[in-house]
């Protein structure tokens, strides 16, 4: 069932796959982000309570959801690397870490800029906000741990274990609004049977969610190629590639 995946354990194949996917991911990401943001900013109706400040939702919710999904993807890559001894999986893991960290930063920043006018405070030590902040520290921890190793093979394993242990934080973030009495509001769109948001407001949000996801995938392909070059510096195919100048 997973046989089609095996050739991509070879770094050269993974590199080529990234190159093939990349332009499509960029085009899709830019199109979705443009449509979703313009739609959300200018055409979606006002919120009856929050007025126009609610429009921050169109970047806050996608970045927050995907900051968690990226973490899970990173941990899955680490698990694959551990179980099947795929070096390429560790490279994918470390390629995703900075992208996820940026998403977490965006979620926290836009949350603060939304919290100030609505709650009257940039930051409160609420369960949802605190657990999301811990997610940022986990990302930074994985990146920093990997960076301390001279031997990237060892570094990948160590950072992979850290990424796996940190997965425990993801359900905590998700359920924090139910388990604790938080200032942060409950889930809006993850209740698929009965989303508590009007469809005119929901559609641009879904488009932007897709846009953010494609953006993450696009940057990951670039960063994975970079990681492969670093780790395979002395391979003939990398040398040939570098001497050819570009691509």
């Amino acid at each position: 069932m997973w046989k089609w995946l095996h050739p991509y354990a070879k770094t050269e194949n993974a590199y080529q796959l990234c190159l093939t996917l990349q332009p499509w991911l960029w085009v899709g990401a830019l199109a979705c982000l443009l449509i979703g943001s313009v739609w959300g900013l200018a055409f979606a109706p006002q919120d009856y309570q929050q007025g126009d400040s609610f429009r921050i939702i169109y970047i806050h919710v996608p970045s927050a959801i995907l900051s968690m999904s990226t973490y899970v993807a990173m941990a899955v890559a680490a698990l694959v690397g551990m179980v099947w001894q795929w070096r390429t999986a560790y490279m994918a893991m470390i390629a995703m870490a900075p992208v996820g960290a940026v998403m977490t930063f965006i979620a926290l920043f836009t949350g603060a800029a939304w919290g100030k006018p609505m709650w009257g405070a940039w930051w409160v030590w609420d369960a949802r906000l605190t657990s999301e902040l811990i997610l940022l520290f986990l990302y930074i921890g994985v990146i920093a741990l990997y960076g301390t190793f001279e031997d990237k093979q060892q570094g990948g394993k160590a950072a992979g274990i850290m990424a796996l242990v940190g997965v425990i934080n993801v359900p905590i973030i998700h359920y924090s609004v139910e388990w604790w009495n938080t200032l942060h509001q409950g889930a809006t769109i993850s209740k698929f049977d009965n989303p508590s948001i009007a469809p005119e407001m929901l559609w641009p949000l879904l488009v932007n969610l897709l846009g953010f996801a494609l953006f993450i995938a696009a940057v990951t392909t670039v960063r994975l190629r970079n990681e492969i070059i670093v780790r395979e510096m002395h391979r003939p195919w990398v040398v040939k590639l570098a001497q050819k100048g570009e691509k």
Partner: protein
Amino acid sequence: MQFESFSSFLAMGGYAFYVWMSFAVTFGAMLLLAVGSYRQHKVLLKSVVAEQARQSRIKRARAKTADISPE
């Protein structure tokens, strides 16, 4: 369009500062990440070529010293 004029669109119902700051920082951060990744790619390719040149210089130098001191 939800807004009557462009200026009311910019005003965001009084929340202009928060809304526009959020969008600016978000897309600014994403742009930096993307540009940084591509820049890193260029630097890496250059360093691969430089490393290769260094290796071949070392090889040539070794071959030369071997020529000079045959005894």
